[in-house]
């Protein structure tokens, strides 16, 4: 990661406590503009709390989160979230799901159309634009949500294990797709997963978390050409290294 890249998000001394329970302690890191950052940690390490803090929807106990040098604020900054379970709105078509956020943000109609068409083409949804969520499979629904998030051109896109339960072949397909749309839209992404192989496949950089109270254990750079090959010895080496850092099972 060249140090001349512009910093988009700064997290400084983030600490979160629920009464006596210290969940996050002194987490500090930067995310570069347009970076694809993955976060992995052991099961139960508090990653949901971590993401909820980053949305600024729950208060921090200590520390700060800056976007472009200013305190992150959901009213000012555009922070998008892709949940584990598909969260498309069932009463809207695919196209209207993707338009929804843009209309709320009062983006001009012409630009809405351009962006919606662009992201639908990128994730192969163009021919399904008039479908309703109930007519689509789980993986298609997740693509609707991902298209919707990227279309919003967020300052920060948070993804919480969006491909958790899908089969490996499908996951690689969708992971390639998310990389393609990320490269095209140049979005800053924080992608959280339990799956170490997935992190190595996607990330420019991986932050490895400790057990609770959670902090950053190590930062691992992944400088492999794309599309990546999970049988490549260097890929395997990084995967094993990260596994050793968090293995509890």
């Amino acid at each position: 990661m060249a140090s001349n890249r512009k910093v988009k998000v700064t997290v400084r001394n983030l600490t979160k406590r629920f009464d006596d329970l210290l969940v996050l302690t002194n987490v500090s890191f930067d995310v570069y503009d347009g970076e694809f950052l993955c976060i992995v940690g052991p099961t139960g390490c508090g990653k949901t709390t971590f993401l909820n803090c980053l949305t600024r929807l729950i208060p921090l106990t200590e520390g700060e989160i800056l976007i472009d040098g200013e305190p992150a604020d959901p009213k000012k900054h555009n922070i998008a979230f892709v949940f584990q379970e598909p969260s498309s709105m069932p009463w809207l078509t695919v196209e209207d799901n993707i338009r929804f956020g843009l209309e709320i943000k009062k983006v001009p109609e012409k630009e809405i159309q351009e962006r919606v068409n662009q992201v639908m083409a990128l994730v192969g949804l163009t021919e399904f634009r008039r479908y309703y969520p109930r007519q689509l499979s789980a993986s298609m629904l997740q693509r609707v949500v991902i298209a919707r998030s990227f279309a919003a051109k967020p300052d920060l896109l948070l993804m919480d294990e969006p491909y958790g339960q899908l089969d490996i072949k499908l996951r690689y397909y969708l992971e390639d797709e998310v990389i393609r749309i990320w490269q095209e839209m140049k979005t800053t992404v924080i992608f959280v997963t339990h799956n170490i192989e997935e992190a190595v496949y996607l990330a420019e950089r991986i932050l490895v978390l400790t057990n609770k109270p959670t902090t950053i254990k190590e930062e691992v750079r992944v400088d492999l050409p794309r599309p990546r090959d999970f049988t490549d010895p260097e890929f395997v080496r990084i995967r094993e290294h990260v596994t050793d850092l968090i293995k509890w099972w």
Partner: protein
Amino acid sequence: MSAKIVCENVSKTFPMRGGGELQVLRNISFAVQENEFLVLLGPGRCGKTTLLNIIAGLEDPTEGRVLLDGQEVTGPHPDRGMVFQNIALFPWKTVLGNVEMGPRLRGEDKEERRKRALYYIKLVGLEGFENHFPHQLSGGMKQRVGIARAYCNNPEVLLMDEPFGHLDAQTRYLMEQEVLRIWQEARRTVIFVTNNIEEAVYLADRIIVLSACPATIKAEYPITIPRPRNYTDPVFLKMRQEISEKMDLAL
């Protein structure tokens, strides 16, 4: 070894709402040897669960038949124990109550069934949790109860329908190790359904790959890598890749 379970030309067609028919299984034939760990691997919604339900006797095939020790399967029976994808524990029963439910309903002697229930609860690593209720357990622990419950009926064959599908990737690794340990200690014929290639290669004596809907048998792979298997062993990864190339992509 002799064939424990045989599927002969099993096909299944469902009527569709508003007319028409949907064929989900077409001409599935295979045999499972006694004490073999067989994995049925297929993409999402390819009819894997339907096939397992037919073997369990919970559904009838449209054509073909299933044999257990040479006898045609006509309905559910304790000789085939099932571990469900959605776990399906009785929420108002404790761990012990869940595990001994089958023998209890069959009127088995209390002392006898309790002894066996406690043995399997210990085997799946839940000693000390006998009197906990399902809502007090984590996802991995709940599925351990599901496995103990299936074993407690003394089944000849264990049918496992994507039992770890809801678990996170790390807990899943743990449960894969555990299910092999349990199987090695209490040998049974196992038919394990999954959509996860890595899990299949880790567990199986043999993998049968199913196509997308309607499911047909696409390929078969005996897995001879010695156990315990290593997920990042080059031979393991090569096997995964080979199977991945053969598998259908179901969007």
